[in-house]
């Protein structure tokens, strides 16, 4: 086990350049010194060397820093020097500013020390109790290494949002296909298999063919049409031409900037409104806030944790939501427009692909027809889809607007397609086929397209159901993840609460309070509530009923419980520093604290400072009673001066030096040392009454 042999400090805080060493000799140290004698200088030195900062200076107030205010005020240009000598049975290592050649058993010790969870100062005792719940949770974060879980949560959340977007797009696509089919068949209302059968049967009736009773009979009906067409010789070429004309017309029908224009308009209106509001309006936050306040019957704001009047806050949030209803609706509009625009572009792409296929089937070289206009269209549609799929926030309105030209009536691309249709139609008209044959071909083409369209709708329905199932699974997985994290953290808090309660009860046995409980709250930001019981009152903020002394011991119990938790994660790191933490406790409680420390923390190397001489004496008695005197170096700072810093020299040392001086040195030197010895003797006499 790594232990500290000594801490040497020079030119830092209250310790002058001449330097002072605090000898541990691998034991714990009990350090007594009156106020302002430099006890905390050793604590600051530990923190500076092991953590790279001093909490009482760095980050405490603007302009304060350990770089600037750490050095002794008379250090001049000299840099502070702090070193710790570590030892275990295998090595002795002196660590100063240079940290090369650290022995491997020391590395985990230093790594754990850097987390800075081993020092409790008097001024920090109430920090955990007094702080806001969200800061309390932040304080506990080092004990909750959840970065990886957070990444998984974010990933599952993004996957859930993508899955939801896919449902919206699939739904818009289905609506569009239904609309197309309704339009082409002249059917109003819901599209059903029966309505399709009727529409197809009507078409067949127009050319004198028997009706069908189910869509599966379409291929039979097409076969009958083909038999009749065979009487007119080879109708393959006009058939393919009509198919190409039909697919090109369908493409032309689908080509419309409408959905994209709507997307641009709603997106622009949304952005203008948000800009006019001068700030981003988080309706979701208000919505969720109202839910949290209601569900948890909260009396504090989910975000800032300040006390609130729940009903007034809900009313105010609701009023704000109402006043922003227009903005909320714009958001919903824009989101719906986006899904519809994506679906519309995909429909255009599908039509273009069908047109390409129909044109390819023609044998274009023979007919001198080029697929180029359709190819060009497809390429532009791909670019457009890539742009709008980025989502509302990233949508580049101007870029999209300028790329829309090809979709507008009269555009070069659209005119070129229309010209292809006319050209193909002229070719059909020039073919020597009677009207009856053309009518049959047209019917054949129509019912084939209906069958194809129906397959598309069925496939779109399957896609919609699949997207819905996927979104549902994604939602479930995400919610279960949140639950799992909350439960595990709460269990950890429960263990921590139990340990705090155990320590607190050791300090206050047979007193009717305790029941310390830390609770995780996820509303707004992650936060931790602290609750305690006091006689018949349970689940209360301890500040409501506890005395200052009880709050002090609660603060110490919390710190010690956290320190033990930290030790479990880093068993090799045994240092515990308690800087004058007992101030408002009576003797009985101070004695219990001493017993607790000596018994339950006997495997820690402790630096315990106090300004209370009586407690210092008690602590030594308790050491003897607990038979652990050999584990402690009990030190007294006799006085502090700005020139010499804390005086840790023992009277016995001075007596030895004096003896040596008496035989060999001058009267002046002897007088000086005798004066110092006398000073110490007088001080001891003062304490001994």
């Amino acid at each position, binding site marked *: 086990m790594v232990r500290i042999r000594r801490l040497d400090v020079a030119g830092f805080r209250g310790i002058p350049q001449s330097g002072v060493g605090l000898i541990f000799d691998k034991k714990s140290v009990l350090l007594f010194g009156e106020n302002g004698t430099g006890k905390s200088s050793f604590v600051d030195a530990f923190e500076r060397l092991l953590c790279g900062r001093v909490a009482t200076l760095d980050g405490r107030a603007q302009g304060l820093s350990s770089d600037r205010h750490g050095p002794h005020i008379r250090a001049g240009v000299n840099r502070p020097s702090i070193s710790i000598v570590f030892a275990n049975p295998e090595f002795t290592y002196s660590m100063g500013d240079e940290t090369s050649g650290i022995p491997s058993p020391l590395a985990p010790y230093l790594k754990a020390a850097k987390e800075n969870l081993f020092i409790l100062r008097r001024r920090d005792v109430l920090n955990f109790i007094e702080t806001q719940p969200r800061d309390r949770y932040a304080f506990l974060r080092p004990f909750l290494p959840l970065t990886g879980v957070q990444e998984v949560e974010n990933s599952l959340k993004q996957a859930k949002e993508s899955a939801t977007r896919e449902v919206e797009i699939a739904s818009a696509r289905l609506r569009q296909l239904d609309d197309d089919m309704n339009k082409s068949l002249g059917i109003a209302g819901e599209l059903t298999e029966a309505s399709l059968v009727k529409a197809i049967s009507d078409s067949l009736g127009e050319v004198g063919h028997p009706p069908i009773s189910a869509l599966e009979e379409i291929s039979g009906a097409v076969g009958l049409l083909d038999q009749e067409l065979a009487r007119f010789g080879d109708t393959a070429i006009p058939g393919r031409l009509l198919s190409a004309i039909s697919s090109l017309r369908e493409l032309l029908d689908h080509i419309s900037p409408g959905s994209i224009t709507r997307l641009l308009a709603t997106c622009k209106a949304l952005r203008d409104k948000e800009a006019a509001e001068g700030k981003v309006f988080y309706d979701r936050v208000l919505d969720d806030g109202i839910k949290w306040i209601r569900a948890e019957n909260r009396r504090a704001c989910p975000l800032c944790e300040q006390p609130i009047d729940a009903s007034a806050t809900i009313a105010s949030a609701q009023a704000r939501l109402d006043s922003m209803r227009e903005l909320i609706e714009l958001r919903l509009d824009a989101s719906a427009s986006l899904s519809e625009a994506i679906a519309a572009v995909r429909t255009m792409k599908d039509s273009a692909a069908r047109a390409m296929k129909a044109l390819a089937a023609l044998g274009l070289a023979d007919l001198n027809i080029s697929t180029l206009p359709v190819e060009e269209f497809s390429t532009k549609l791909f670019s457009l889809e890539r742009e709008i799929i980025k989502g509302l926030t990233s949508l580049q309105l101007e870029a999209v607007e300028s790329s829309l030209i090809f979709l507008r009536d009269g555009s070069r691309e659209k005119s070129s397609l229309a010209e292809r249709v006319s050209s193909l139609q002229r070719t059909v008209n020039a073919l020597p086929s009677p009207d009856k044959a053309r009518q049959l071909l047209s019917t054949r083409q129509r019912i084939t397209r209906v069958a194809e369209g129906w397959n598309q709708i069925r496939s779109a329905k399957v896609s919609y159901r699949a997207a819905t199932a996927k979104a549902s699974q994604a939602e479930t997985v995400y919610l279960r993840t949140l639950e*799992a994290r909350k439960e595990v953290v709460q269990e*950890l808090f429960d263990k921590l609460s139990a340990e705090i309660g155990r320590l607190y009860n050791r300090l206050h046995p047979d007193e009717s309070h305790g029941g310390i409980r830390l609770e995780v709250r996820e509303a707004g930001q992650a936060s931790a509530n602290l609750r305690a019981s006091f006689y018949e009152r349970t689940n209360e903020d301890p500040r409501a009923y506890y005395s200052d002394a009880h709050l002090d011991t609660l603060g110490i119990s919390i710190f010690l419980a956290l320190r033990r938790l930290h030790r479990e994660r880093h068993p090799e790191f045994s240092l515990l520093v308690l800087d004058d933490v007992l101030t408002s406790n009576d003797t009985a409680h101070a004695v219990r604290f001493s017993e607790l420390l000596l018994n339950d923390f006997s495997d820690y190397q402790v630096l315990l400072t106090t300004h209370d001489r009586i407690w210092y004496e008690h602590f030594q008695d308790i050491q003897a009673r607990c038979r652990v005197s050999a584990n402690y170096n009990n030190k007294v700072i006799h006085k502090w001066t700005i020139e010499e810093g804390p005086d840790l020299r023992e009277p016995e040392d001075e007596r030895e030096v004096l003896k040596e001086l008496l035989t060999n040195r001058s009267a002046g030197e002897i007088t000086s040392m005798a004066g110092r010895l006398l000073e110490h003797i007088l001080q001891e006499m003062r304490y001994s009454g």
Partner: protein
Amino acid sequence: MDAVKSIEDEVLDRLMEKLRADQSVSPNLVSRLEELRRSGTLSQPEKVLQAYRQEVMEDGSD
């Protein structure tokens, strides 16, 4: 108190346990998510989406 070193593992173990017990989540999807966890790719949304997609496809809905 138990060691908290593996708190992340505890959370993910608990998640898998919950998913296995959830009748609305298919066992195949849980296996896929466990596989992603083993390969350290559960934090990649596209991999997760792919798992959902495969699951739906194998479920025969697609």
